[in-house]
């Protein structure tokens, strides 16, 4: 089984999709000759031609809007948005057009567009390069949103997004692009369904739900908690829309305590949605309120202080302490 970084796994997933289906096209800023600012699309233009791996003008609304038009003509475009904070010029096209066309047409039209967005902080970058805007999109019906946390999932989820008849946004954890892992390119195994959560570590005392870049942090926190005698279950959510509540609820019914961690601000975030659902469906199993760990209600701070902003092992452990204090 080959070992590769998440970036390479996405690259391999894109290559497989391009090779397997002539209607698949890639479009974005600098994705062709340069291979993308993170080299995720490296080598694909020379392999599949500029006709299929398109260096677009620098215009996000145009990238999404023309991708919609290409999909109406029968293509399966994969649009890359260079950084999380630059998706907003395309926000109108994504939320008012892409998300709604299938419904508006009473199901007659499908718009199988995939949007890849590197997201999250921890890379010491300048403004608008470290954000986690997933909740803004999760609030919009018609979109599916997934986020891999490891190379195997990155390989398969990229292809699953492209194969979906619905528009899918893949949030790629950019600070984990160089995280290596084994990829079974023959068999997705338990990753066959991109919208199912994975229990990565079993536990009995508390559950930590995380996704994307915080999954390794959650696993490390569970390891640290184990040293204190606490058995913590860790769930990689994988899909942000839809959310696999069944897996989360089953875990909470077992552990009685839940911490949800994401880089995005807690207010109005995915953690709040999970807390609400768990309180509705597993109220009597809860030993403590659901605790959220996430960013503060502020614009993403400057790089020199981001380590105090981003949830880390200690922040998750502190949240677990609070959960155990009830």
């Amino acid at each position, binding site marked *: 089984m080959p070992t590769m970084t998440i970036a390479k796994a996405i690259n391999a997933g894109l290559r497989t999709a391009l090779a397997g289906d002539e209607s698949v096209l890639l479009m974005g800023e600098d994705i062709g000759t340069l291979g993308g600012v993170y080299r995720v699309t490296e080598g694909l233009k020379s392999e599949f031609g500029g006709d299929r791996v398109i260096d677009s003008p620098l215009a996000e609304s*145009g990238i999404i*809007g023309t991708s919609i038009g*290409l999909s109406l*003509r*029968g293509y399966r475009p994969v649009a890359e948005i260079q950084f999380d904070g630059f998706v907003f010029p395309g926000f109108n096209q994504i939320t008012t057009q892409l998300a709604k066309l*299938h419904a508006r*047409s009473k199901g007659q039209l499908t718009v199988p567009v995939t949007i890849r967005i590197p997201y999250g902080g921890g890379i010491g970058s300048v403004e608008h390069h470290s954000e986690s805007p997933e909740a803004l999109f999760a609030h919009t*019906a018609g979109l599916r949103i997934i986020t891999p946390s490891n190379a195997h999932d990155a390989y398969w989820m990229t292809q699953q997004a492209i194969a979906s008849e619905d528009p899918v946004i893949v949030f790629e954890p950019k600070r984990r692009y160089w995280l290596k892992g084994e990829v079974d390119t023959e068999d997705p195994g338990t990753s066959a369904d991109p919208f199912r959560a994975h229990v990565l570590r079993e536990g009995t005392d508390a559950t930590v739900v995380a996704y994307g870049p915080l999954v390794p942090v959650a696993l490390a926190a569970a390891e640290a908690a184990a040293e204190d005698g606490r058995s913590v279950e860790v769930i990689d959510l994988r899909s942000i829309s839809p959310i696999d509540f069944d897996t989360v609820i089953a875990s909470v019914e077992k552990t009685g305590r839940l911490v949800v961690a994401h880089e995005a601000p807690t207010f109005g975030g995915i953690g709040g949605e999970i807390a609400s659902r768990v309180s509705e469906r597993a109220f009597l199993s809860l030993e403590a309120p659901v605790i959220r760990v996430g960013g503060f209600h502020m614009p993403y701070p400057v790089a020199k202080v981001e380590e105090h902003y981003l949830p880390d092992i200690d922040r998750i452990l502190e949240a677990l302490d609070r959960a155990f204090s009830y």
Partner: protein
Amino acid sequence: MGVELPTTEFSDIPDELWLELEAHAHEAAEGHSAVVRLLDEKGGFAAGSKLADAVRALNPEDLRAMYRDMAMIRRFDIEATALQRQGQLSLWVPLRGQEAAQIGSGRATQPQDYLFPTYREHGVALTRGVELGELLRLFRGLSNGGWDPRETGFHLYTLVLAAQVPHAVGYAMGIQRDAARAEARGEDPGDPGAVVAYFGDGASSEGDVHESMVFAASFKAPVVFFCQNNQWAISVPAEVQSRIPLFNRAKGYGFPGVRVDGNDVLAVYAVTQWALARARAGKGPVLIEAYTYRQGAHTTADDPTKYRLSDEERMWLERDPVSRFEAYLRAEGIADDAFFADVAAAGDALAAKARADILSFEAPSLEDAFANVYAEPHPLVAEELAWHREYEAGFADTESAVDADRAQEGGR
């Protein structure tokens, strides 16, 4: 960009005319007042140009059909406006005054073409064979556009201004690729079609129009940008959208722009055919500015007396596209009293049908709205639909219980 469109032949308008128009377009970019026109305000025909010759070659039957479309959609528009006033539509977006721009451009398209309308292109819809009742359904609050765009090549209405314009460019990029692939396989791609993107003077200010023109120019996409400058974006005059004539903007993107008299159906038809032929031949986009006037309100919720002068409205009524074309057809002996009476009767019948249809439309249920949120199964939608059904079923119980009570009371 590796895509090269194969050259396709299009014989309705001779090559010399295209060249003439292209020359005109480049010339016009320098001057501000140039406008392509064949019919003057009294319906007099300006002969003596190649453009005129090309239109002269049009079949009298086609010309009458063109008039019929214009008159029919005007009559339909009047009826729909009245239906809104009578509470049968929640809103209507009148097209009155823009019949020539819409019928002329719509009739210039081919079945294999694909058109992206705004929300006022009722005339174009007619030329593409869209069932007009679907437009009424939309404005009655029954659908967001129920026709199948793949059947008519007429996309759904788009209410977010200019959002459909990049879709048009993307669709055109798809056509390019289809043709290139067919060629690569050694097949004759035939005429794979071209695309028309409709928008107005107001929407021309939207960033999506700019981005679309950049993409279209860079990739030489086979798309015609058809801007109906009807002078008013609700209450804001076109001068606030652009300090130069809109068609001049094309030059900045590197493709031709032409201003056509949007109340002259023959000129609109000829110029649109030229632009589409150019697009089919792989020469890239054209911007057509159809200079016209919105004779009515922006929508039935609007009151133009608040922002424009009746003198201006009167001046534009003298340029009315329908009566101008009627004058031409009469002067040329192409149509007579009997024809116009026949068209008027057909218009009244269409209006009566619209009125009858609207009362026969069945209301959709909210359940329908759950069905197409996603193309593939979605657990949250399924869960909410189940809850909704159960909740609604609870009312049914109450209603049947009430009915049963009533029945019992009646029996006593």
